[in-house]
């Protein structure tokens, strides 16, 4: 269970960021461009579909972390903002996890709608049950 948010009592008035030099923004910007080029390069290398997906998502997460922490000043801001950002991504992850787990572990024939309705793939049925001999070969 979540404990009450970390911010405790009201923060000190006139909360000022530590003096931030514009240089930091350019460094972060450079990092983001570099990451975009890497994800572009990675997508060109021959890998399995899943690996491509995993790499792309990982690089995207790193970029999101950079933008959120420095451009959106999440790094120095109050705990509650960080908590809100973290919890919303956690809920997105749970929604994706459960829905994709459902699609992945469904009844084998149930994803058969990518094949038109009339033809039930007899091979799947045969795996599970020997058909009566007189059924003509498909």
């Amino acid at each position, binding site marked *: 269970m979540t404990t009450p948010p970390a911010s405790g009592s009201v923060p000190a008035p006139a909360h000022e960021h530590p003096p931030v030099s514009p240089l930091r923004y350019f460094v972060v910007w450079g990092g983001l461009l570099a990451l975009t080029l890497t994800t572009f390069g990675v997508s060109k290398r021959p890998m399995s579909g899943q690996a491509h997906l995993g790499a792309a998502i990982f690089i995207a997460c790193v970029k999101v972390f950079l933008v959120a922490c420095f451009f959106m*000043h999440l790094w120095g801001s109050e705990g509650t903002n960080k908590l*809100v950002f973290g919890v919303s991504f956690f809920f997105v992850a749970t929604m994706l996890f459960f829905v994709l787990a459902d699609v992945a572990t469904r009844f084998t024939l149930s994803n058969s709608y990518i094949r038109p309705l009339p033809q039930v793939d007899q091979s799947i049925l045969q795996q599970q049950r020997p058909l009566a001999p007189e059924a003509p070969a498909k």
Partner: protein
Amino acid sequence: MEATSARVMTAEGYLAPPPTPHHYEGNPGAHKHAVRFGMWLFLATEILLFAGLFCGYFVFRADFPEAFDQAARHLSLALGTTNTFLLLTSSLTVALAHHNAEHGHNRNAFWLLVVSIAMGGGFLCIKAVEYTEKFREGALPGRFFSFSEITAPGGPMFYVVYFFATGLHALHVIVGMSLLTWVAVRCWHKEFSPTHYAPVENAGLYWHLVDLVWIFLYPLLYLV
């Protein structure tokens, strides 16, 4: 926010900050925290709004892998990457604008915001080019799909996800640009000062969020 004209120009070349609202007086820091915290909560709702779309993307990608591969190859990579570059750079300029506004340099902030809005406009133009190209090709979602080059079943499903996700994102870009324009006008009137820069910060946060969503959309739709 009272009308800017009612407020007097201070020595440092920007307007006096507006008084803290009546139910916050005695604690301006709490009001500043409240405004920023409120904006972050709103950003959480935007993140969850797009979560449903990503859910749809992954489900249909699991159901129609070949169709998604073929369709992804038909998207023009050049336009997608330039769009990513545009949004990232506009995020930079918005961050710089916020930095300048925080130090009271209203005119610098104004020009930086103008550049960001221009880049947003560029993004939308590129998107428009891509859309017209797809309308001509017939690569449209649902029953309007008549794109011959995609033979795998579920071809239209990619374009359902593509058009809905990029369409909703483009809508958010438009809202973001209008927010930035509204804040740019107030920059022109030299309204912001070290103690009063919340509007620039919130418009910046919204723009960065729109950039975040595109950071996820770009690899998933164009690269993978």
